[in-house]
């Protein structure tokens, strides 16, 4: 993988962040170390929405202690920027966010998909081969926004907001809730030009509003932004 893809990414105009998923803390750290100083890799994002084999299958991202442990191990293994992608399948996302930020994460991205299930009534079986799957797209946007809002009030590290963004207005909502950047996934399946259109529309919107930077709107709707732990 490392021999094949990073040389291609190095030729692109955009930075490439590698999303890592592992079964153990050691696997995460090992992968992060392998990517350190590889040309074409701009950073790593930890997918902590996967089960920790060494902790009885407990999801890394569902426990503040496990999430902090994997973050710290990766932080120690690489000089690359470390982003931790938080799962929404928790009771207190701010607690996990604080633990991960304190363990050395440079940024947080949220939310990962919501765990879901669908049943094929004709086959009388779950639709997905893996039984459960990740729910994404416009349906999850309100949940994602709420979590970005909560986490923005709880941590000082930058937040990348995602979950159901399908256009400029959605992106603005995430920025105003406290995200410094956004990601777009599902909408890309619906419209392959979505990301570039949001970028263009955002620039035009800022110009119309007389703003010079997205920074001027980050967290403007968030009463708790900057007042850490005050949610």
């Amino acid at each position: 993988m490392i021999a094949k893809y990073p040389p291609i990414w190095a030729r692109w105009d955009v930075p490439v962040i590698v999303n890592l998923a592992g079964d153990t803390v050691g696997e995460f750290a090992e992968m992060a170390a392998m990517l350190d100083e590889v040309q074409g890799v701009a950073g790593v994002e930890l997918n902590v929405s996967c089960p920790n084999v060494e902790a009885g299958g407990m999801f890394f991202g569902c426990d503040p202690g496990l999430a902090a442990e994997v973050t710290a191990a990766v932080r120690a293994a690489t000089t690359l920027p470390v982003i931790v992608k938080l799962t929404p399948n928790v009771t207190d996302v701010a607690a996990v966010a604080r633990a991960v930020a304190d363990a050395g994460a440079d940024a947080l991205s949220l939310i990962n998909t919501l765990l879901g299930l669908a049943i094929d009534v004709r086959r009388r079986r779950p639709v997905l081969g893996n039984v459960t799957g990740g729910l994404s797209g416009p349906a999850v946007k309100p949940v994602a926004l709420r979590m970005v809002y909560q986490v923005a009030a709880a941590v000082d590290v930058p937040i990348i907001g995602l979950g159901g963004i399908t256009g400029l207005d959605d992106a603005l909502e995430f920025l105003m809730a406290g995200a410094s950047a956004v990601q777009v996934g599902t909408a890309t399946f619906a419209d392959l030009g979505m990301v570039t259109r949001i970028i263009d529309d955002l620039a035009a919107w800022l110009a119309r509003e007389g703003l010079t930077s997205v920074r001027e709107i980050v967290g403007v709707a968030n009463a708790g932004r900057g007042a850490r732990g005050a949610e």
Partner: protein
Amino acid sequence: MPQQFTATFIEREEALPRNAIVRLAAPRAVVDAAAPGQFVMLHQGLAAGRDPLLPRPFSIMRATRARGAGEPDSLELLVFTGGRGAGRLVEARPGEPFAALGPLGSGYQLGGRVSRALLLAVGHGIAPIVALAEAALARGVAVTMLVGANSADQLLPLPYLPTDAEIAVATADGSRGHHGAVTDLVPEYLEWADGIYAYAPEPVYVALREALRAYRGARTLPPVQVAIERGMACGVGVCLGCVVQTKGGLKTVCRDGPVFPLEQVVLD
């Protein structure tokens, strides 16, 4: 190679109740690349009020180069018009554009040694099976198509089927052809066929497997290729929404399939 392209609506023919054959103009590179069993993803979500949001996969029934000057190269799809997935295809007018991606997936492998192909289709599976039949016939392969449906009115009428194929029909209600399952017809062709290809709901594959296991003749039975259907969000192996368990591990229907060797498929 799959590519992004604009498919331009040409015409729609109500070939069956709640099913239409939709013809779309497509770039020559797409038409030439399309192989039997492959599909295209048609996008219609965001521009049309986000419903449906995600593109839908459609099996390619025919991919045809322009027959004369001023004619477009085109794709024919069999579209179920009774559900949300058909979206604007149900009302589209000539010239309406659809963002598309394709051809996608791993289709049927018609090996060079095959000279007598047995094709089995139930329901919507007739579309890719027509594509395979025509490709096989063009190569001089003798083709028998076994076509199953609940009733006669759900069978794609003969004018839409290849004229040079032998066609045998089975209906569950007996309104045309054999009264029963289409797989009941399989045994009498097992001495004849040297390639078997199917596109049908999975319970039909269970019956097909039983028919093959019951064979007591002297031949080594030919390999069987079957297509699996799953909902897909991306069509290119990214979202993993269509993953199925196979005897060779987890596979994406959109990229590793939709066509798999029958012995690799896990049927429950």
